[in-house]
C-alpha cells in the first residue's frame, strides 16, 4: 500500500494542536515554538509531495479513496493535480511565515491563536485535496471557524463587526452550495442508483441544461463571494482591515483562492454548459472588478484597505483568465492565484511590520521612510513591483497569460482589462511615494528601526519566489498544464455538443492518453 502523504499533510498540523493542548497557556515561547516547528514540518512534507509529484502524470495523484460514512455513500477521497499541488505548497509556506510574523504582535491568548492557525491550515489543505464533495464541504466549513476567531479575537477596533460580516457572507454562499450539493447527490442516485458525493462520478453524469444553470448559480455564488467577485466584495475590506496581519495574509493568500479553486475544480468540469452560458456575465463582472478595484484602491487612505481593494482587482484578473477557457488564460489564472498569494501576502506582511512600529496604517502618517528604513523600503519596492506585474516578477507571467488568453476570445474585454495594468501602477506607486519618499515630516517616524533579522527571514523567501516564478515559471506551468488540459476537455466537449457536431469523446480516464476528435476533423493528442 502506498503511503498516504495527503492525509499526513492535512492532519499533521492537528498533531501540533494536540501537543499544544497540554502546554500551559503561560508558556508563550514553547507554544510559539511548537506551532512553528509543526508548521515548518508540514511545509517540508508539502515540499516532499511537490518533489514526488509526477510532472508528466495525468489526472489525480496521491489518490486515496476510503469509505467514510457508508450509509450515506460519503467517501474519504483525496487526490491532487498540479493546481492543488501548488496551492497546498503556497498554503504551508504562508502558514510558516504567518506564525513567524505573529511572533511579537500577538500577546493575548497566545495559545488560542496558534491553535487557530494550525487548525486553519488543516482546513485549507483539506479543501485543496478533497475529491468528495461532502468532504470538500466539511473542510470548507472547518476553515471558517478559526478564521472567525482570528479576526474576531485578535483583530482591530471593529473586529466583531468584521468577523460577523465575514461569516455571514460566507455562510450565505455555503448554504446555497450545500443545497446544490444535495441536489447533485439525489440526482446522481436517480441516475445510477448509487448514492455518492464523489466528484468524478458526478462528473460523469449528464445534467440537464436548466437545472445545470441553477446548480452552477448556487456554486458560483458561494465561490464568487469568496473570490470576491464584484459586487460581492464588500466584506473583504472590512475583514482585511480588522484582521491581524497573519489573518490578512492567510485571508488574501489562501482563503480567496478557495473561491477561484472552487470554480476550477467544481464549476468548470461539472457544469461545462452552464459555464459557457454564464461566461459573458462572469467575464464582465471580472473586468468591472479589475477596474473598479483599482480605482477605489487609488483613493484609499489606509494602506491595508488599499491592498484589500487591490486584491479585488487582482482576483478579477484570475476570474477573467479562467473564463477565457483556453490554455493561456486558464494557466495564467492558476499561476496568478499563486502570485496573488505571494505578492499580496507579502504586502500585508510589510504593512504589518510598519504597523507594529507605528500603530497606524494611514498613508498620511508616513513619508520619508526610505531614509530611516532603507532595507524595508527596498523589500517594499520589490513587492510593489511584483504586484504591479513588472516583467521578471511573478505578477507579469500571470497577468500576461491571462490577458493574452482573454484577447483571443474577447478583444474588448482584454482591452478594458489591460487598462488595469496602468491603474495598478497608479495606485501602488502613488501609495509607495507617499509612504516611502519625501522628507520625514512626522517626528515619530524619525527613529524607526529598520527590519530585524526575523522580519528579513519572513520576506526573503517571498522575494525569492517572486523572482523564481517571474524568471523561470516553467516548473510551475508544466505542473499546471495537464490539470488545465483535463478541465478544458470538459469545456470543449460542451462546446462541441453545442455546435451539434458528431463527435465521440471518451470520458477522461486518469493516466491514459486519449484521443479527442475535434470538430474540424483534426486529431489532437491530449496527454
Amino acid at each position: 500500500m502506498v503511503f498516504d502523504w495527503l492525509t499526513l499533510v492535512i492532519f499533521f498540523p492537528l498533531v501540533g494542536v494536540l501537543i499544544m493542548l497540554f502546554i500551559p497557556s503561560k508558556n508563550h515561547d514553547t507554544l510559539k515554538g511548537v506551532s512553528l516547528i509543526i508548521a515548518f514540518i508540514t511545509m517540508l512534507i508539502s515540499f516532499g509531495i511537490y518533489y514526488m509529484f509526477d510532472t508528466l502524470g495525468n489526472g489525480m495523484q496521491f489518490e486515496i479513496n476510503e469509505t467514510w460514512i457508508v450509509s450515506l455513500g460519503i467517501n474519504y477521497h483525496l487526490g491532487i493535480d498540479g493546481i492543488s499541488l501548488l496551492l497546498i505548497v503556497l498554503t504551508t509556506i504562508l502558514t510558516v511565515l504567518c506564525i513567524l510574523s505573529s511572533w511579537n504582535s500577538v500577546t493575548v491568548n497566545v495559545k488560542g491563536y496558534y491553535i487557530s492557525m494550525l487548525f486553519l491550515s488543516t482546513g485549507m489543505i483539506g479543501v485543496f485535496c478533497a475529491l468528495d464533495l461532502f468532504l470538500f464541504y466539511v473542510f470548507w466549513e472547518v476553515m471558517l471557524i478559526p478564521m472567525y476567531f482570528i479576526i474576531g479575537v485578535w483583530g482591530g477596533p471593529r473586529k466583531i463587526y468584521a468577523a460577523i460580516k465575514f461569516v455571514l457572507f460566507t455562510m450565505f454562499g455555503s448554504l446555497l452550495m450545500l443545497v446544490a450539493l444535495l441536489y447533485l447527490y439525489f440526482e446522481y442516485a436517480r441516475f445510477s442508483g448509487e448514492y455518492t458525493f464523489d466528484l468524478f462520478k458526478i462528473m460523469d453524469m449528464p445534467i440537464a441544461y436548466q437545472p445545470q444553470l441553477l446548480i452552477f448559480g448556487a456554486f458560483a455564488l458561494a465561490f464568487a463571494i469568496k473570490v470576491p467577485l464584484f459586487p460581492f466584495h464588500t466584506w473583504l475590506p472590512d475583514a482585511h482591515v480588522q484582521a491581524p496581519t497573519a489573518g490578512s495574509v492567510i485571508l488574501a493568500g489562501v482563503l480567496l483562492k478557495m473561491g477561484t479553486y472552487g470554480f476550477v475544480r467544481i464549476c468548470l468540469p461539472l457544469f461545462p454548459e452552464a459555464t459557457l452560458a454564464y461566461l459573458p456575465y462572469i467575464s464582465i463582472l471580472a473586468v468591472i472588478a479589475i477596474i473598479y478595484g483599482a480605482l477605489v484602491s487609488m483613493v484609499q487612505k489606509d494602506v491595508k484597505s488599499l491592498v484589500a481593494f487591490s486584491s479585488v482587482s487582482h482576483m478579477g484578473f484570475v476570474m477573467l483568465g479562467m473564463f477565457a477557457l483556453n490554455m493561456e488564460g486558464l494557466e495564467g489564472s492558476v499561476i496568478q492565484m499563486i502570485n496573488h498569494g505571494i505578492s499580496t501576502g507579502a504586502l500585508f506582511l510589510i504593512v504589518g511590520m510598519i504597523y507594529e512600529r507605528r500603530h497606524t496604517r494611514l498613508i498620511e502618517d508616513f513619508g520619508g521612510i526610505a531614509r530611516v528604513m532603507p532595507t524595508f523600503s527596498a523589500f517594499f519596492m520589490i513587492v510593489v513591483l511584483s504586484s504591479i506585474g513588472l516583467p521578471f516578477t511573478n505578477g507579469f507571467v500571470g497577468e500576461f497569460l491571462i490577458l493574452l488568453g482573454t484577447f483571443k476570445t474577447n478583444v474588448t474585454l482584454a482591452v478594458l482589462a489591460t487598462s488595469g495594468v496602468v491603474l495598478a501602477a497608479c495606485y501602488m506607486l502613488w501609495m509607495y511615494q507617499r509612504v516611502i519618499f519625501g522628507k520625514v515630516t512626522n517626528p515619530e517616524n524619525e527613529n524607526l528601526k529598520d527590519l530585524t533579522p526575523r522580519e528579513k527571514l519572513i520576506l526573503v523567501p517571498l522575494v525569492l519566489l517572486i523572482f523564481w516564478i517571474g524568471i523561470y515559471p516553467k516548473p510551475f506551468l508544466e505542473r499546471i498544464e495537464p490539470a488545465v488540459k483535463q478541465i478544458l476537455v470538459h469545456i470543449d466537449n460542451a462546446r462541441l455538443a453545442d455546435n451539434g457536431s458528431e463527435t465521440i469523446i471518451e470520458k477522461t480516464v486518469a493516466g491514459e492518453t486519449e484521443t479527442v476528435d475535434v470538430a474540424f476533423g483534426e486529431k489532437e493528442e491530449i496527454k
Partner: protein
Amino acid sequence: MFDYIFLVPLIPLAGFIFNGLMIGRVPRPLISFIGCLTVGLSFLLSVLLFFNLKNLPPEARFIEQVLFSWIPAGSFQVDIAFLLDPLSAVMILVVSGVGFLIHVYSVGYMHHDPGYGRYFCFLNLFTFSMLTLVLANNFLLMFVGWEGVGLCSYLLIGFWFEKKSASDAGKKAFIVNRIGDFGFLLGMFLIFWQVGSLHFATVMKTAPTVFVAGGGLITAACILLFVGATGKSAQIPLYVWLPDAMEGPTPVSALIHAATMVTAGVYMIARTNALYVMAPDALLVVAIVGAVTAFFAATIGLAQNDIKRVLAYSTVSQLGYMFLACGVAAFSAGIFHLMTHAFFKALLFLGAGSVIHAMSAEQDMRKMGGLKKYLPITYPTMLIATLAIAGIPGLSGFFSKDEILWKSFSSMNGHLVLWVIGFVTAGLTAFYMFRLIYLTFHGKERMDEKTRHHLHESPRTMTVPLIFLAIFSVIGGWVGMPHIFGVANYFEHWLEPVMAHGGGEVEGPMLAAGGGDTGTEVLLMVVSVVLVLVAIFAARYYYLKNTQAATSLREKLSGVHKLLLNKYYVDEIYGAVIVRPVVYGSIFLWKVVDVVIIDGFANGMATIIRDISELLKNIQTGQVRRYATLFVVGVLILIAYFTFG
C-alpha cells in the same frame, strides 16, 4: 565567440547584484570599480562580437542564442533568447560604449552623494535592461528590457527621493510609460493572436502571409506598438514625462533620457520594420507624429531658461526626427540619427552637468554667462556637440539629419510638407542650441560672487568622457555619408540585411526619373545649411551682440513667449481633463457606490432581517394569556375561512 552573447547583458547584471547586496558594506572605490568595470567588459565584448559578425557574409549575420524556455503555456512559447544581427550589434555598441563613458563620468559627478552605492546599482541594472531590450529575439523579452529600463528610469529620476518634485517626476514617468505599455501589450496580443508567435524572425517571416498588407489588423498592430513607442520615446501625446525627468542626476539624463532608453521606441520600429512597411497608414501616423513632435518640442525649447530643460525638449525634438525617418520607411536613417544623437546629446548633457557642477548646482542660464574661460574643456567639447546637433557640415549630426530630411522628401512615403517641417525645425534647433551656448559660455558673467568664486573645471573622470564623446560627435557620422559625396554609405549597407525583408527603403517616384535626383539632393542640403547658419547668426545677434533686442522681442511677443515658457499648458490640460476626473470619479465610486450602495444593500438586508425579527420577537412574549388570545384569533380566522371561503 557567439556563445558569449548572453554575457553582454549579464555582466552588468552581476555588477548590480554585487553592488546591491553589498550596499553600505564596501568602500566607494570598489563600488565605482565594479560599476564601471562590468559595463566596460560588456563594451569590449560587444566590440569583439561586432567584428566577429562583420567577418560573416551579410546573409549569415543573424545569430540566435537560446538560453531557456521562459513561459511555456499551451501553444504559447517564449524563450529567454538573444539575437545578434547588424541592428542589435550597433545598438549594443552604442549602449555599452556611451554607457561606459557615463559610468566613468558619474564617478566624479556623484562623488559627494550619500546614495553613491544605490546610484551605481541602478545604473548597472539599467545597462542590463537596455542591453536585454536590444538583444531580445522576441517581443516579450524586449518588453522585459522595455519595462526594466522604465523601472530604472523611475528609480533614478526619483533618486533624490526626499525632493517631492523628484519623486513626482519619477512616478509620472512610470505611469505615462505604462500608458504606452498598454499599447505595446495590446500590440503583442494582436500579433500573437494572428501569427501565433512572438519570435521576431517568425513574426516577420509569416506576417506577409497572415496579414493583408495595408489591412486593418496590421495597421492596428503597428499603431498599438507605436503607442508604446510614444511613451518610451517621449512623443506627442505622451512626451510630458521627459522634461520632468530632468529632476534626476545629470549623468542619468545623459544616459537614459538622451542617449539610450528614450531611443528604444525608434529601435522597436526599426526592429519590426517588416510589419510597418505592410501598413502605410501606420507609417504615415508615425511620420506625422514624429514631424509634429520635432517641431512642437523645438518651439518650447526656444523659451526655456533651465539648461537641462532646453536639452530635454531638444531630445524630444530630435527623437521626433528619428520617428520621421522611420515614418517615411527610412529605418536605417532613423537608427543612424539614433547613434549620432547618442554621442552628441550625451555630450551635451554631460557638458551641462559639468557646468552645473561648476555653478554650485545652478541650472538657470540667466544666472550664467562668460563661463568659457573657466571651463576650458567643457566649453569646446560642448561647442562641438552643438555644432553637430545644429547640423554643420562635416560633423556627425549633419549627415544623419541631412539623410532624414532628404528621405522625408524623396521616399515613397515622404512628402514635401514633412520635409518643410523638418527643415524649419532644423533652423529652430540651431537657434535654441546657440542661444544655450551664448547664454552659458559667452557674454556677461551674471552669477553671484560666491558662485563665481567657486567656478572650476571638473575633475578628470568627468572631462575625459567629454573628450571621447566629442571625438565621436565629429567622426561618428562619417560611416554614413550620402552617396553624393562619392563614398559608400557604410552604415546603411551594414543594416541592409535587417531592413531587407520588408523591402527596406523605397526610393520615391521622383528618383525614378533619374538624373534630377542628385541636383535636388544637393540643393536641399545647401538650403538647410544656409538656414542653420542664419539661425546661428540670429542667436548670436539676440543673445550676444544685442541682448536688448531679445528683451524687446520677448516683450513684443509676450503672449507667445508665455505660452512657450509654460509649455503650451499641456500638463495643466492633462491634469484637468484626465487626472482630476479619475481621482474624483474614484472617490465617488468608493464613498457612494461601494459604501452606500453595495455595502448599504448588504447591511440593509441585515437590518431588514433584524427588524423583522424584532417584530416577530414581540409575539414570543412568554405570556400564556397572549398565546391563548392569538390561538383563539387564529381559530376564528380559520373557521371564518372555511365557512365563507
